[in-house]
């Protein structure tokens, strides 16, 4: 099972790399207008202050969804940490294990809650395609099984099987945003930085 996880991981990394190269292959736009601001400062702003919860109205108005999303992501990263530990047969110190359990518990709650929200809210459901549900479900299950594994090591087989599925699916659907989030935010920051909008002058 460990080998399957590793092979799936290699697939995910290679496929993401191909996707990234494909996107990069679209080429860079040559700009002729004179910059008013610093694109670099815009990028720094886009990855820092622009991401704090109170910086965006969309987050301020949806704090619960934001909190669920953040815990979901924290859970995913924690579950991947646990997966690495399990693959390497590393022991996890008790305080760290407690933290991991809390984060994966919060992550699973976040993930399944957001899945429920997507299924229940008509507008969000209308926006969704099957990939939205599959991606969320794979990640939420992955986190929940990671949490279960910390209590019951016999779940390792089913957890790693699910992890393999997640890794195989990762580049195929919207979980690819684990890569393109960074490139997108970079481009947003560079665009508004060049125009002098990021960082705000006031």
């Amino acid at each position: 099972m460990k080998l399957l996880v590793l092979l799936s991981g290699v697939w995910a990394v290679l496929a993401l790399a191909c996707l990234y190269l494909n996107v990069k292959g679209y080429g860079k736009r040559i700009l002729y207008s004179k910059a008013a601001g610093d694109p670099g400062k815009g990028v720094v702003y886009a990855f820092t202050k622009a991401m704090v919860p109170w910086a965006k109205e969309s987050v301020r108005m949806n704090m619960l969804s934001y909190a669920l999303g953040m815990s979901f992501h924290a859970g995913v990263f924690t579950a991947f940490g646990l997966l690495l530990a399990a693959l390497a047969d590393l022991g996890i110190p008790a305080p760290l294990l407690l933290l991991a359990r809390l984060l994966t518990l919060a992550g699973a709650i976040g993930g399944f809650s957001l899945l429920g929200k997507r299924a229940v809210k008509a507008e969000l459901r209308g926006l969704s395609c099957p990939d939205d549900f599959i991606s969320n479900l794979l990640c939420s299950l992955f986190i929940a099984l990671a949490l279960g594994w910390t209590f019951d090591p016999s779940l390792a087989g089913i957890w790693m099987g699910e992890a393999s599925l997640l890794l195989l699916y990762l580049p195929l659907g919207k979980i690819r945003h684990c890569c393109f989030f960074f490139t997108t935010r970079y481009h947003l920051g560079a665009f508004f930085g060049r125009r002098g909008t990021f960082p705000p002058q006031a």
Partner: protein
Amino acid sequence: MPELDELEAKLDALTEADFRKGLEVFRGKLKSAEASYLNSCVHCGLCADSCHYHRAEPVLENMPAHKLDVVASVFKHNFTAMGRLAPGLVGAKPFDREMAKAWMDAVFGRCSLCGRCSINCTIGIAMPKIFRAARAALAAMGLVPSDLQATVDNSLQFGNNMAMTREDWVDTVQWIEEELQMETGDPEAKLPLDKHGAKILFTVNPREPKFFPLSLQASAKVFWAAKEDWTMASDGGWDLTNYGLFNCNDPQAGAITQHLVDAMARLGCTTLVIGECGHGYGSARWEGPEWLQKSYPFEVKSVLELMEDYIEEGRIKLDPSRNKVPVTLHDPCNLVRHGGICEVQRRILRKAVTTFTEMTPNRAENFCCGGGGGQLSMARYKARRIQAGSVKAGQIKATGAKVVVAPCHNCIDQLMELNKEYKLDVQIKTVAEMVAEAIV
């Protein structure tokens, strides 16, 4: 409605070659930034209320992510492996008649390209970039709403978007000059035309000579007070507008920009000054060089920057007590969020009026008035435009201001309609009008 019949007829007449052409143009607009955006949306839906259309009418079709998805579905179908292998899974759809209609509704009918969704997107997708690419594809397919296209055609044919003749323009300028001379008591107060070697070429929105001569007179009074060496062109190159920004036909947009470049060369001016117009500033300052694929050999400034220079340099002196009525400021999207001109107008107003109240939210978080993106020229979407403007109307009401300053003539048109529709009981003015009033 004749517009809708015309649209259906255009859609019915589309051939396979038209769709191929549209896709080719769409693909040509995508660079790595746009390709990244199209791979990033997670459908979280948190962008919904960042859009004034969705605020005013909370339906799925008005959600920015949905509008993006309408375009992205075609991208996936035609340019991604998963879109070809498992279209149903990832929401990929072919570009056909109904999809072209959906694109039109999404990117022309429900979007003013204001970019408020960009800064509120949890991922950071600059959605107007994608919507512009879609508009460009539709333009290549002959699907630009005819009234929007007519505005562009006017600029190409007459050198200004309102088809004013040279004679009308020159007559109006001379008439405003006489008014300025009466106002200032200075017979030497001029609105110079074609003054070779002047430092500044000043450009205006044709709505000024046509409907708002006091606005042009106010700018001229500021130049007069500052003893500026300026001119306007009597022929092509006096109109700052460029609706090529909205029909997204780059060759046409470039041809309109060329009017300004030619006038600068013809008159030997060193600085191109863009009057108070958001999309005019965005077109000339930011997009023009990209459309022409070359840097300008001259500087481009907003008249707001110039007015602040005058105040800072002591070339004009203002007495704010001449503007005692409570004032608020509207932030035009193309000038502020997309243009980077954000604080200048505030610094000016603080020196020109006694009571200045900010709208909430403001600056880069401002709400579009609803008139951007060419909406003012697309009659078929008027009801939506007025409805979407209710958000801005609410902002204005909340300030309690009696004067709304809007450094954009397109915004002014929309705000005047909102004033009437939502009974705001305000006056709409430009920054120059406030400054001119305060000059001592």
